[in-house]
């Protein structure tokens, strides 16, 4: 049986942040994720590194935390963050009194806020509504959740931290009121296992209630659905926020090659209620078009849904409120020592949350080492010589993209191309992903499915949504003998199914034609839907 000090459940931003923090402080830790890193809210989110502006009026403390963490993440997470800045735009129908209140609240929370001349704002951002009545600039930025999670794990690994994906915790063992071990099941192979430990950290996001339930403890959370839509283009280079009390569909985030609009909000039963609906999409466009008049004409790529845990403090449980933003629940107070849960928060504040809970854990373990996560960069910068070398092989814009996606793995990718220049061919033309990059990622021992490759390379996330790279990627997996027990058909199905989940609710216009092409290739060309009986059977 394996043994460690702390088992962390959940490979979202919070979990990986804790893994990194504990590892840096010298606490042996293993993170277990039931699917892949960022399977939950940490990728199904808006991609906004909050300046705090959104919370300034309603929750000064959350706003201040965001402002501080924003500055920290720009520093330590340079390769996950695109420092875009953001605008808050008040339209004539939005309350001017709120504007005044907001400016004061931002200043009080330490958020740098600058009024922007309207003409200048329109020159820099030509597509937002001419009707705008006031514009302010704040240090909002875009952040990539996949990359953030991965790079936290890479950092933790350097300090001995371990991560196992596709490993679901199925029970939490205890003896005499003390956590002793977790039992696990591999969700790809069904293989069972267990890990002995002293501490279990429940960082399961919307699943936090289920996980606590494994130890017979009740946490009152209701998952809340939020749907977002991705447009095919960047039509804004800055985050665009509506300057009004936070509501639906009032933030646009330019993210790599696309623009994200969200979000909606509705309670649900299941933490993995990830299927967006057409109604949600239409509602988003309807509200969003107030800020971008031409919005209904922009090409939609897909929709996606994430869930946030809405926490309602259980009067019987003793809670220690760190902030209204997130809570840490030490279940020793309910008679189970060693189990500690964290609920709520934002991706922007993940590091701070990890710091607070790691403080609590270190307190239990009498570890003195201080938190250093705010000082050290997640991954090293790429050497300029390597960038120079890489520029010879990648298409325009491709080097920077690949470098930010791959981080330390860029070197291996460049080596692959040097060894065989044919590997600079693009597997994914929409997102400029070379065969060498896909191979590098595919060979990593935490990569199993084609969606794993997608999350780390963006293969399949562009205009054609997997139509071409699906086939090419599959060819690569088979060529390199990386199918690892999955049939080629299942590899492809899993990949395409995740793409279609986001396309089904937006089947009109160009995306309808796009998907017909995909269906033609996979359905008719490859008979994936089995319309024609298999003659070999």
């Amino acid at each position, binding site marked *: 049986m394996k043994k460690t000090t702390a088992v962390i459940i959940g490979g979202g931003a919070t979990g990986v942040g804790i893994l990194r923090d504990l590892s840096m402080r010298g606490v042996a830790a293993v993170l277990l994720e039931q699917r892949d890193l960022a399977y939950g809210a940490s990728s199904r989110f808006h991609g906004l590194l909050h300046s705090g502006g959104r919370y300034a009026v309603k929750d000064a403390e959350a706003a201040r935390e965001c402002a501080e963490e924003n500055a920290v993440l720009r520093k330590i997470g340079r390769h996950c963050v695109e420092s875009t800045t953001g605008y808050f735009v008040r339209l004539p129908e939005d309350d001017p009194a709120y504007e005044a209140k907001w400016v004061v609240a931002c200043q009080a929370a330490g958020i740098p806020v600058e009024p922007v001349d309207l003409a200048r704002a329109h020159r820099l951002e030509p597509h937002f509504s001419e009707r705008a009545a006031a514009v302010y600039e704040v240090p909002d930025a875009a952040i990539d959740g996949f990359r953030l999670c991965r790079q936290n794990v890479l950092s933790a690994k350097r300090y001995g931290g371990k991560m196992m994906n596709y490993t679901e915790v199925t029970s939490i063992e205890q003896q005499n009121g003390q956590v002793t071990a977790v039992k696990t099941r591999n969700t790809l192979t069904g293989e069972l296992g267990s890990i002995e430990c002293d501490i279990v950290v429940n960082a399961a996001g919307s699943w936090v209630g289920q996980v606590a339930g494994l130890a017979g403890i009740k946490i009152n959370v209701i998952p809340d659905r939020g749907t977002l839509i991705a447009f095919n283009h*960047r039509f804004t280079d800055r985050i665009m926020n509506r300057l009004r009390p936070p509501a639906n569909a009032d933030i646009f985030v330019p993210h790599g090659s*696309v623009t994200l609009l969200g979000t909606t909000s509705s309670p649900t039963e299941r933490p993995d209620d990830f299927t967006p609906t057409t109604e949600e999409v239409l509602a988003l466009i309807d509200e969003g078009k107030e800020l971008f008049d031409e919005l209904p*004409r922009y*090409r939609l790529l897909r929709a996606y849904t994430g869930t946030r845990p809405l926490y309602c403090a259980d009067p019987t449980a003793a809670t220690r409120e760190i902030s209204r933003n997130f809570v840490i629940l030490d279940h020793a107070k309910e008679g189970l020592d060693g189990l500690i849960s964290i609920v709520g928060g934002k991706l922007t504040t993940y590091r701070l949350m990890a710091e607070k809970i790691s403080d609590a854990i270190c307190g239990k373990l009498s570890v003195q080492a201080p938190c250093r996560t705010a000082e050290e960069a997640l991954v090293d910068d790429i050497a300029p010589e390597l960038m120079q070398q890489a520029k010879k092989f990648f298409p325009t*814009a491709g080097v920077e993209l690949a470098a930010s996606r791959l981080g330390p793995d860029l070197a291996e990718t460049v080596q692959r191309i040097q060894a065989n220049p044919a590997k600079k061919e693009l597997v994914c033309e929409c997102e400029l992903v070379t065969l060498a990059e896909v191979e590098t990622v595919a060979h990593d021992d935490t990569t199993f499915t084609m969606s794993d490759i997608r999350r780390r390379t963006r293969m399949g996330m562009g*205009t054609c949504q997997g139509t*071409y790279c699906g086939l090419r990627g599959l060819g690569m997996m088979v060529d390199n003998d990386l199918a690892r027990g999955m049939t080629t058909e299942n590899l492809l199905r899993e990949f395409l199914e995740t793409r279609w989940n986001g396309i089904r609710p937006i089947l009109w216009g*160009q995306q309808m034609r796009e998907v017909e092409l995909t269906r033609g290739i996979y359905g008719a060309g490859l008979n994936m839907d089995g319309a024609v009986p298999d003659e070999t059977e």
Partner: protein
Amino acid sequence: MKKHHYNPDSCIACTSCVAYCPVSAATRKFAGPKMMGPALERFRGGETNTDFSLDYCANCKNCDISCPSGVPISTLNMLARAKQYKNKRRSLLDWMMSHSDLMSKLASPIAALSNFGMANPLTKMILKQVGITDKMSLPKYASKTFLQQFRAFKQQSFPDKVVFFSGCFINYYAPEVGMDLVAVMQRNKREVIVPEGLDCCGSPLVGKGYLDEAVEKARTNIAALKHWFEQGIPVLTCCTSCGLMLKMEIQEMMDLELMEQLAAYTYDASEYLLELHAQGKLSTEFAPVAGCYIYHTPCHLRAQGIGKPSLELLSMIPGFQIEDADAGCCGQSGTYGFEVAKHDIAMAVAEPVLKRIREFQPDFIVSDCSGCRLQLSQGTGFPALHPLTLLRRAYEGK
């Protein structure tokens, strides 16, 4: 919304454009129209690296023609090229290939000398250093430009007028084609007007990324033409690249006042004559014309989306036999085939049509585009004519 302004968002990545791109078929140096157009367009927000692949697009427009979603792929390429080279030092070759109008202004008054100078071995060597291939002969300056010949020519006056936009090639190198147009119009009781102050259409500038200069030319041309098209007088071209510029490319790449009106009144000369025919106004008093002919459709004519009007017109000549080559792009694309770096690509692109013509053994090749005529004639050894020249011969019974 502008008629010819399309959203690159419409690309469904179907890759038809790649299948139809003659350059992609000939070389791996070009990443292909889909990649260089709509795909990379999504990443062209901020500063981008210089991408040499971008130079290989010949702007032949076969991608635009084949696109089922109406994406102006080649235009996205040209705009990207302009952005890439804005404020950058350019090679002498790029400058020469895009400013032939200026060079012609200097060289054409001393045509005989210039032609001699261009043809002599020393000049050829120097040109090769600059990057111009010695495998092709450059066109020869005419001793008198079209404009000089036209001004000296006494037309019969008619109430119906047409404006003629000759473009640089016809003016400096092929004035006889312009004079053929004048003769054909006179036959059809039309008086030809060539307004003062016309400039190069800008097509070579666009092709080399000098977009700002092309915009200035377009502005100048609109200013010179508007007096006429605002009265409803049609503007005729018989160079298919000039025609494409006035009809479509200005709208796709620029934002100028009156550009839609100019486009609405611009006709390819053969297209215009066919319209006259539809109205029963075309003189069809054609005498038979002897000989064996093969017709090549220029890509920039196909991009205009008006069919093959010249072929239809010529078929009205009694007993006239003309074969439609229908064998793709000739590879020349204006000045593309003149460049050392591109010449072999141009020849590879041309091979099917050259082979077709060689096998057909015509007396004459017929094509509306001067670049195509030059390429096909040099590539096969058969002489080439503009369709209007043949039409004139049919009218005059020669």
